[in-house]
Every structure is written in structure tokens, then in C-alpha cells.
């Protein structure tokens, strides 16, 4: 789809109410978007409207409110199905977030299919939530976790990956984009090699979905997980995409209402996809309004956003590099708007505190990626991560503030 509308960042900023906040007497600069993105007015208003007008439990009621809520909930499923370009609508399962999506696969597919001596491949740049669930499977089943190394620029070593693959490999689970480095991994290639080795794949899209166009059929991954709150959507909503055939053969995750077909004390039969994985009352209101964030993204134009964010990243990288003693961790050729850095020998937390005093929100610490910190021989970084509403003026102000922090800490 060709985008004709011009991308006007100042117009976009007006749609995000929180951006007008004053923090520590300064206009807020929100550079912690990799942690969570801010919400546009349409999402906030829709949630308000939902609770005022049609809050109800879904799928079971026959009254008007239940029907409205059910069709709105299912409309979001259709929207996500289109957003990810999945083949079937029922391949979209709602969860509480990326972490739950990954755990769902680890607790169902993996526990059924992983046996003693099998291998699971992750990478050095994974978030803990794409490490720990697999470690638990390995411990329980006597399987082994294999790790794809990264080079000094923060890119996956693809040759090493290929040599890790074997007939023992059962699943490859890697991040699409690193939350620390911003590296965009060649997921299509990763999936292709995994399939050739007879393994299935899970792509952790927590950091990619907001920045890149996602086409799960093109990637050909077997699972794709992401969270709504990082895509300008509400908290507490996640998505697990899975290929229909695999999902159908997978054992259920949680037992409860909605996921059943018939229950007797002798035997319970399960509902069909996607409901067999959605036990209990879901996060109805937030799922419903998530559709608004996806619409907002589409309306703004994904190409426009990508182009703007890439330009901002380039500008910011150049500006950051001019600060003496600043070292960027993660210099991959293909990156999203994430800049992790260290400044001389200053503790990242000190930087974070002094930036906060100047109204700037960044993240500091190990970013739930301790193995990656070990790889670079560091304990943590300060991380600035950008969204579509950030500007060059903010980057300029950030640089001034960072220089000031540096001066104070020396």
C-alpha cells in the first residue's frame, strides 16, 4: 500500500497526551520506548469508552453488552491476523504478554516434544524471558541449551549458528530484535536453516513489532510472540501466533472455562483453536482497544514510521558519538532505534539519575539480558530507545543533558 500522507512528528506528538508532561521542572523526553511505548489518545479514549459503555464477559453471554464486547474482542483478533499476515485467523492467541506467549510454547509444545538428549537453540542476545523457560524445559527433560554467539558489533554469528544445528535440534527460539543492541536478526534465514535441520522456530518479536513490518508467512516461523504495550497498545495483552497444524497438535496450557468443549468428571474435551489456549476470562477491554493502536500504526503508515525512525537513529548515533568517552554497545548494520552506551567509567545508574533530574527517561542496568552483558564484559548500560514521536530536538537536548551529567560525575 502506497502511503501518501506526510509524516509530521509534531502532529503525531499531539496524539500522545503524556508527552506534554513536565518532569523535574523540564518537558519530558521519553527515551524508554523499548521498555514500553506511550499510548495515543485513541487507545486511552477507547478503554474509557469500553468501561463506560459495554464492559461484559465475552463468548458466553447472550445479552447485548456481551455480544458487543465479544465481537469487538474478536475484531482485534482479525486485526492482529491481518497485522501479522497469518494464514488463518485462529492462529492468533491472546496471552498476557510476550513472556506468557513463550512460556505457553515451552510448557505445551516443548514438554510434549522435547526428550532427553534433544537440543534447544537460543542466542546470546536473548532477554531472560526467552532463556529461562527453555532452561526449565532442559532441566526437566534432560535436554541441552545451545547458544548462538554474537560478534563485537552485536550481530549473530550465522556460521556458528549453522554448526550448532543438528538432528538433535528441536526448536530454535531467537529475538527478532535485541532489546539491548537494537540488532535486527536475519530471522528468515534463521528459520530456513532450522527447518532444514528439522527443527521448529519461535521468534520473539517483543522489540521488532513496533518498528518493522511483520509477515509471519514470509518469515515462515512456527511461532511469533509479542506484547501490545510495546506497540503503542495497552498493558497486559500479548499475542502468540502459531502455525495452525502445530497449535492443533499441541496440548492445552491452562485449564478452565472457555477452553473446553465438554466437561464430565470422566473426561473433558477441548474447544477448538484459538479458544483451547484461552482459558478463563481474558483481558477483554485491553484486547479490544489494542485494535486502535494497530489502526493508528497503519494510518500513520508503517513505511513512514520506519523511515522516520531510521533517520532519527542515524542522527542520534552521530550526535552521541561526539561525546568524548562514549562507547556504543551494539553497532550492527541493521538496527532499530536503540542506543545502548557506556560513558567513561561512570556507572550507568548515575547517568540515569542525573538524566532523570533533567526530565529525561532512559533505562539503565542489565536490561534482563545478563548473558549478553557477560559477552561484552560489562555489568550494564544506559539505553536510549526511540519511538515515532521522538524528535531531533529531543536528541539535541539529551546530548546537552548527558554532557552535563558527565561533567557533574567527573
Amino acid at each position: 500500500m502506497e502511503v501518501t500522507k506526510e509524516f509530521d512528528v509534531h502532529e503525531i506528538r499531539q496524539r500522545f497526551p503524556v508527552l506534554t508532561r513536565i518532569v523535574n521542572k523540564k518537558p519530558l523526553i521519553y527515551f524508554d520506548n523499548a521498555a514500553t511505548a506511550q499510548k495515543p489518545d485513541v487507545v486511552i479514549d477507547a478503554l474509557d469508552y469500553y468501561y463506560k459503555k459495554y464492559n461484559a464477559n465475552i463468548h458466553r453471554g447472550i445479552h447485548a453488552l456481551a455480544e458487543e464486547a465479544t465481537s469487538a474482542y474478536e475484531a482485534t483478533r482479525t486485526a492482529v491476523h491481518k497485522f501479522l499476515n497469518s494464514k488463518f485467523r485462529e492462529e492468533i492467541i491472546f496471552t498476557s504478554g510476550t513472556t506468557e506467549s513463550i512460556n505457553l510454547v515451552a510448557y505445551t509444545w516443548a514438554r510434549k516434544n522435547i526428550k532427553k538428549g534433544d537440543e534447544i537453540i537460543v542466542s546470546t542476545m536473548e532477554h531472560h524471558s526467552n532463556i529461562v523457560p527453555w532452561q526449565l524445559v532442559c532441566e526437566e527433560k534432560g535436554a541441552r541449551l545451545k547458544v548462538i554467539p554474537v560478534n563485537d558489533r552485536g550481530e549473530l554469528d550465522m556460521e556458528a549458528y549453522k554448526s550448532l544445528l543438528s538432528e538433535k535440534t528441536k526448536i530454535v527460539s531467537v529475538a527478532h530484535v535485541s532489546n539491548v543492541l537494537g540488532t535486527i536478526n536475519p530471522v528468515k534465514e534463521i528459520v530456513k536453516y532450522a527447518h532444514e535441520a528439522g527443527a521448529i522456530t519461535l521468534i520473539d518479536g517483543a522489540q521488532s513489532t513496533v518498528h518493522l513490518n511483520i509477515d509471519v508467512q514470509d518469515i515462515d516461523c512456527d511461532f511469533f510472540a509479542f506484547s501490545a504495550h510495546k506497540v503503542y497498545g495497552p498493558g497486559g495483552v500479548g499475542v502468540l501466533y502459531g502455525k495452525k497444524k502445530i497449535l492443533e497438535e499441541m496440548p492445552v496450557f491452562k485449564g478452565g472455562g472457555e477452553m473446553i468443549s465438554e466437561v464430565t468428571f470422566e473426561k473433558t474435551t477441548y474447544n477448538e483453536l484459538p479458544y483451547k489456549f484461552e482459558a478463563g476470562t481474558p483481558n477483554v477491554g485491553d484486547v479490544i482497544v489494542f485494535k486502535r493502536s494497530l489502526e493508528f500504526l497503519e494510518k500513520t503508515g508503517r513505511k513512514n514510521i520506519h523511515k522516520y525512525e531510521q533517520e532519527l537513529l542515524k542522527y542520534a548515533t552521530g550526535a552521541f558519538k561526539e561525546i568524548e568517552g562514549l562507547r556504543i554497545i551494539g553497532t550492527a548494520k541493521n538496527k532499530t532505534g536503540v542506543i545502548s552506551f557506556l560513558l567513561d567509567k561512570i556507572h550507568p545508574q548515575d547517568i540515569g539519575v542525573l538524566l532523570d533530574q533533567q526530565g529525561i527517561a532512559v533505562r539503565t542496568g542489565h536490561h534482563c539480558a545478563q548473558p549478553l552483558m557477560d559477552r561484552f564484559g560489562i555489568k550494564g548500560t544506559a539505553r536510549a530507545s526511540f519511538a515515532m514521536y521522538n524528535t531531533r530536538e529531543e536528541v539535541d537536548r539529551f546530548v546537552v543533558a548527558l554532557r552535563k551529567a558527565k561533567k557533574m560525575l567527573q
Partner: protein
Amino acid sequence: MQFTSISEREKEIVDNFSLFDDWEGKYEYLIDLGKKLEPLDDKYRKEENIIKGCQSTVWLVADYRDGRIFFKADSDAIIVRGLVSMLIEVLSGQTPEDVLSAKMEFIKEIGMMQHLAQTRSNGLVSMIKQMKNYAIAFHSIHS
């Protein structure tokens, strides 16, 4: 040796901070306190003395002499070090009873509460708790 009370020491800190009317002054003072804090000897920088925060680490040791507790501490982040230095200034050399009943209101008065609110990130809350644990321990051993 003369010992000033917790409230006197707190007042002194609050008075010092009141000299600054902007955040820069306050934080420069805090960073300066951090720099001046005597580094903890390497032999104390061991696992059992660590108070782990999610981001920065604090080391704390305590000693009991003549009915009073003496604390030494350190951190790998300079602002936390400054805060640590103030906690020591206020609580070191006090009796276990006084350490236990200290409310540490001065932290709020000097506008540094946010550092106690970040419960997981810097270990300061755990540090105060640990100082009080030492007070309980010494109190029960020596009473």
C-alpha cells in the same frame, strides 16, 4: 569520644542540603560525599557483605564496640555512595536501640525519597533494613 544523636546528625545534613536551591547543587554535594567516603577495604568486598540491587551493589559491614554499632559501606555507583555515606553518618556510632528506632526522615526532607522508592534498583532500602538487622542482632547478643 563524643557522640551526637541521630536527630542532631540528621538536622546537620538537612541544613547542609538547604544551602542548595537547585538540583545541580544538591547532586554535586551528594556526588562529593560519595567521592569522600572512605573506600571499603577489599577484604570486606565479599559475597556475604553484599546488598544486591538490580543495578548497583552496596557492601555493608558492622562492628560492635562499647554498646555502639559502627558501620562501613561502599557502592559501585557514585550517587548511591553519597547516599550510603549519609546513612553511615547518621547511624554509625549509635546504640542498637537508636538505630532500630531511627525513622530516617531526613531522606525525605532533602528530597531524595525517589532513591528509596526504586526498591530493586539500588539496594538502599535493603541497606537500611540490613543496618537495622545488625542492630537487632547486636542488641540480642549483648543484652
